[in-house]
């Protein structure tokens, strides 16, 4: 218990604190600690350290939030998205259809404004363009129309924010090795800081599971899923258009 110099060793005190002493040794230790304030202080310190370590790891962080919870949340969001899309769909469905065939940005702006007046009200400042098909004609028309709209708003000095969200086949638009419009997208991003490109995380995941190496264009965002992103934007009063 004691070293030659009469000092109780740290090993012994640790064993005492960890309850590793034989009963005879333990009662000696209790006696010694009871009569010596310095010893008492050392024992207290060791106990304090032990408690702190226990406390520090009582709730270690987990790898990811519980998968089950995430799933249910995702499905809840999907349900919400479906409801919202149904509501908006009625008003904007016909418009989206017409829009893909539109040539004039003025007409486009006018139509957008009419949708705004009918559905949400106010100036159309925020717009989501949803691309879900890999059909090059659709992809081109999405870029053409978005660009002409951005241009029209810039000329009239009205603020506009556009987010192109791609899922399913539409993700091809944003894949570095597949996109037919990689250069054009790069130029558009440079020209319009108010234009964003978002790819659907779920689609990318599915592609990767199939063994496809998905490389996105620079400055492309990835949302947990396109539906999540669209729902979020709709809640923030963005206008939704599907190409």
């Amino acid at each position: 218990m004691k070293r030659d110099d009469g000092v109780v060793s740290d090993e012994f005190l640790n064993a005492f604190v960890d309850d590793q002493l034989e009963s005879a040794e333990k009662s000696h230790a209790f006696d010694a600690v009871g009569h010596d304030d310095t010893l008492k202080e050392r024992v207290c310190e060791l106990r304090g350290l032990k408690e702190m370590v226990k406390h520090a790891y009582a709730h270690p962080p987990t790898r990811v939030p519980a998968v089950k919870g995430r799933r249910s949340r995702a499905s809840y969001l999907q349900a919400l998205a479906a409801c919202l899309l149904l509501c908006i769909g009625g008003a904007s469905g016909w418009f989206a259809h017409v829009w893909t065939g539109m040539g004039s940005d003025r007409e486009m702006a006018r139509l957008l404004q009419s949708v705004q007046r009918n559905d949400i009200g106010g100036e159309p400042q925020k717009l989501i363009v949803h691309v879900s098909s890999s059909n090059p004609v659709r992809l081109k028309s999405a870029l053409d129309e978005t660009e002409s709209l951005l241009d029209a708003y810039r000329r009239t000095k009205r603020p506009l924010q556009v987010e192109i969200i791609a899922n399913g086949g539409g993700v091809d638009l944003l894949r570095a090795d597949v996109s037919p419009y990689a250069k054009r997208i790069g130029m558009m991003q440079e020209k319009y800081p108010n234009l964003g490109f978002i790819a659907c995380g779920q689609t990318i995941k599915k592609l990767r599971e199939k063994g496809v190496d998905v490389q996105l264009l620079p400055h492309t965002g990835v949302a947990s899923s396109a539906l999540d992103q669209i729902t979020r934007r709709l809640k923030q009063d963005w206008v939704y258009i599907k190409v």
Partner: protein
Amino acid sequence: MKILSLFSRAHGFNDQLEQSRVRLYRVAYAWSHDAALADDLVQETLSKALKNHGQLREPEMLNSWLFGILTNCWRDHFRQQREMEDIEEIEDFRCVHETTPEDEHAQSQIVGRVRGAVARLALGQRQVLTLVDLEEFSYAEVAAILEIPVGTVMSRLCRARRALKEMLQELAPAQSAQVSHIRRVK
């Protein structure tokens, strides 16, 4: 009936393993301070335990047996990393990462500070400390789990606590000098 009892025994073993998951994870996290790595280690430990459950002679030794497997998985992890030539060096290897695993802003909090200090301990000391403090294994059990003599367990534990005390004092210097007593001023 024999088959049924065998099945129920196997089922009970699975339950016991599942119950040990949290404890294994806590220790694995305290060794690695990396949630993903800790998760992998625990998963590997449990799958090895399932595969080799015939090797467990005494059921009451389940816990130390499991932590022994965890120790081996942890060693294997280092071997795969090939960060060092000599596997024995692992025991004295200091930080797994250059920085402490907690975010800097968490340093101000007790939990973050203690985890940071534990992470800076030499690995051998960290293992002994966490097995004794978190899992309350006896020194003899820790010696068996880590396959080291009891004397080494005691000396490592002693060094670990000394170092921990110093580190925590460094982080939170004695407050006595800073304490300002409130006085009533009329």
